[in-house]
């Protein structure tokens, strides 16, 4: 790898951004990485980036893997591996440090207060993420109806969600969305 390689530049940039991505990573990192690789560096065009994001959302595994796919589209396997490590290493080190710290301070009233406050905030963020998702990827009321229907089915039944995703793919392919 020479110094001109975008792999190192991209990975360093992602590693830095990943430290700012407090609160779930996916929501925050998505637009920032997109801005950097499309408008900033012009390594990908807008449609390629959007597709990478959509594919990673629909694929199994953590949504952060869209970063791997962006890396792969830009620089093949090296790009995929280094960008993935760039997302994971900084936050992993911090989390492992936080686990040590928490073990020592667990059980206090402040810990209790933190838990009581953070649980509802994270549920609110989760609901907001679902909402933002529909704003980003749903193109009309058909898609919104499918989103609500999927949520209702999941709440009322024990169906495996993978089957619902597959049904969504079929509905989309048939042109219903």
């Amino acid at each position, binding site marked *: 790898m020479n110094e001109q390689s975008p792999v190192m530049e991209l990975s360093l940039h992602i590693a830095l951004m990943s430290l700012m991505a*407090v609160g779930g*990573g996916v929501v925050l990192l998505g637009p920032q990485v997109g801005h950097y690789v499309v408008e900033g560096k012009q390594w990908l065009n807008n449609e390629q980036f959007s597709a990478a994001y959509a*594919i990673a*959302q629909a694929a199994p595994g953590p949504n952060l*893997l869209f970063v791997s796919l962006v890396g792969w589209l830009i620089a093949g396997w090296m790009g995929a591996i280094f960008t993935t490590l760039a997302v994971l290493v900084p936050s992993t080190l911090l989390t492992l440090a936080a686990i040590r710290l928490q073990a020592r301070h667990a059980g206090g009233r402040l810990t209790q207060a933190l838990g*009581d406050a953070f649980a509802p905030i994270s549920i609110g963020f989760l609901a907001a993420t679902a909402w933002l998702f529909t704003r980003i990827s749903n193109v009309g009321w058909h898609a919104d109806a499918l989103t609500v229907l999927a949520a209702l089915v999941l709440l009322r039944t024990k169906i495996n969600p993978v089957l619902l995703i597959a049904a969504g793919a079929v509905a989309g392919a048939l042109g219903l969305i």
Partner: protein
Amino acid sequence: MPLSTIFLVFSRLSMMGFGGVMPFAYRALVEQHKWLTAEEFAKYLATCQMLPGPTICNVALMVGSRYAGTSGALAALAGMIAGPFMVVIALGMVYQRFGELEMFRHAIRGMAAVAAGLILATAVKMAKSMFAKADWRANRARLQVALLALAFIGLGLLQWQLALVFCVLAPLGTAATYLVGEEK
């Protein structure tokens, strides 16, 4: 607990996790293996959102660490990433070949719509379990409803930066629940 068990459980839930691992992590860790209670899951999730980086991977690190220390944490993270990484790259190869096809693009759209529904259902499930035993005359429950609503409004409806909403709500919310805790 053996590292291979941790690796396999997280591999499995991650490989099933279409459109986001969170609902599957909840099913596997809370409902199937009972490694966490629903409330512990919500708290782990909340703690992990405080930390930078991918929330679900931080949850994996914490659960792995709880059952087998630092090597357990790394086993959980490796399980979470390895399989899906290969799948995503394989899909990328398919995309490079067939990405122009109309039907392919429409199918992705349908999958994304369902994926949003899965996240919504998880949020509802977690809210239900958090408020299941709530005492509505107590300030604690009312405060939690307010925090939930404010988090949704700030991030979802007003579309403010996540970091901004978080930096306002987290300290204020913690201070408020700390003071309410004093009333007991």
